[in-house]
């Protein structure tokens, strides 16, 4: 406890906790929709796209990487969610294609043009989450907080629309709801969340943040509203527990959060089974 109190007295630790919790909250909100729309892997795919964008930014030695990463990721998200509906390459295949291609090209570009002496270290930290969550500046924390508030506001305001579009897109469109626009909105929001989350857990583990809380909540609850709320609460608790554990035990932040999420899923699945049987 004393150790925890000591760590919490450092501002960078407090920042990490704030940002971690906010990202966990945002990613879990849309997680339910994505899992139900069979887009569980979009987090993974998009984060690889973001990885590719990062490597381009690194080669161009841009000082502000976000200028490049955010637009590229958003465009990919739009393309992916678009192709999900009526095209020849189905959602999962499209995600797999884009994700693998971006990963390969990202690494290729980094390898050919890199000026860094520690290439594999760079790649590893981008993929598995670096210590960058512990080096956040006040400005970055503020940016993250603002974006989170916007994401949460959009989600609350469009909650009923998101539900309708997720449950039955054709019905929504037939009754005059502009489903295309809402799909676009979901795509943009998820891209923003993923770029934010890369700081926290790295490319590879973002999917876990998106899908685990949703899947856990789906074991326990039966209405869309309760699943969404439960998934948000679970995600925040798991992120908090994960960050605190990683501080105390000195483990990597991203993997620790995911480990806690997996444990929570196990418990929820068990409780769900007991409830049923």
């Amino acid at each position: 406890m004393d150790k925890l109190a000591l760590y919490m007295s450092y501002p960078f630790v407090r920042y990490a906790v704030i940002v971690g919790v906010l990202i966990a909250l945002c990613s879990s909100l849309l997680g339910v929709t994505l899992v139900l729309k069979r887009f569980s892997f979009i987090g993974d795919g998009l984060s690889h796209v973001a990885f590719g964008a990062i490597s381009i930014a690194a080669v161009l030695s841009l000082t502000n990487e976000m200028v490049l990463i955010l637009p590229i990721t958003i465009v990919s998200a739009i393309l992916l969610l678009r192709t999900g509906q009526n095209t020849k390459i189905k959602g999962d295949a499209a995600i797999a294609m884009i994700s693998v291609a971006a990963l390969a090209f990202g690494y290729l570009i980094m390898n050919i043009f890199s000026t860094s002496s520690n290439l594999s270290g760079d790649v590893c930290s981008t993929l598995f989450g670096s210590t960058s969550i512990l080096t956040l500046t006040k400005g970055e924390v503020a940016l993250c907080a603002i974006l989170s508030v916007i994401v949460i506001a959009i989600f609350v305001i469009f909650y009923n629309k998101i539900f309708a579009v997720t449950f039955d897109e054709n019905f929504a469109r037939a009754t005059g709801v502009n489903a295309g626009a809402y799909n676009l909105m979901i795509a943009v929001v998820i891209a923003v969340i993923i770029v934010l989350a890369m700081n926290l857990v790295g490319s590879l583990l973002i999917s876990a943040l998106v899908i685990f809380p949703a899947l856990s909540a789906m074991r326990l609850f039966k209405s869309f509203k309760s699943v969404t709320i439960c998934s948000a609460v679970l995600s925040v608790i798991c992120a908090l527990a994960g960050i605190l554990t990683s501080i105390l035990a000195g483990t990597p932040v991203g993997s620790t959060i995911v480990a806690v999420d997996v444990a929570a899923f196990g418990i929820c699945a068990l409780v769900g089974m007991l409830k049923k049987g």
Partner: protein
Amino acid sequence: MSYIEVKNLSVGYDGVAVEKNINFTVGKGDYLCIVGENGSGKTTLMKTLLGLNDPLRGQIIFGEDLTKNEIGYLPQQTEVQKDFPASVQEIVLSGCLSACGLRPFYNKAEKALADENIRRMGIEDLKSRCYRELSGGQQQRVLLARALCATRKVLLLDEPVSGLDPKVTASLYELIKDLNKEGITIIMVSHDIEAAVKYASHILHIGDELFFGTKTDYLKSSAGKMFTDSKKEVN
């Protein structure tokens, strides 16, 4: 003036026509069955009527104060819905969405409408149950209640009884018949020609042979004779 008038319509995907030169009209209070073999373009025609697909050629004219978005739709079940965690009430309410426009939440009138339609379909006791735990027939009633929230005029039903057992099928047909008696116009896609002949007032047969007319005319037509003949053979 009728509710819907279809003139020389061609429907299909990606510019390839599945069915050409479809002509028919739907008047207030009609019960139209669209029948035809698998792959004859029934579902495509329905999607075109709903505005989900663009017509390749021809016109769909909506008349008598019916606008395009005032059609309630009972779709075929999708893969996604089978394990969707949503309560019956949430799903029925989502039928009111287009009435909301940009307003983010449902108002009292819309909630009351949803409750009324839940009662109408006789599923009050399932109101807070989870959709995925219901039987096929119950699920269809839920989706029917949702469609009724979206319209007071026209219902489009896409193969409403597929996968249901005979008893549930019969009760669903009765329910649809009652709705039609209450003044709701029904357009139903089906390959159950027997039921179509029993319940519908008009029949549109698509496929190799096109036919549109009243039920009595259909039974006399060559398309209808094919059906009655095949029935005789079975017997």
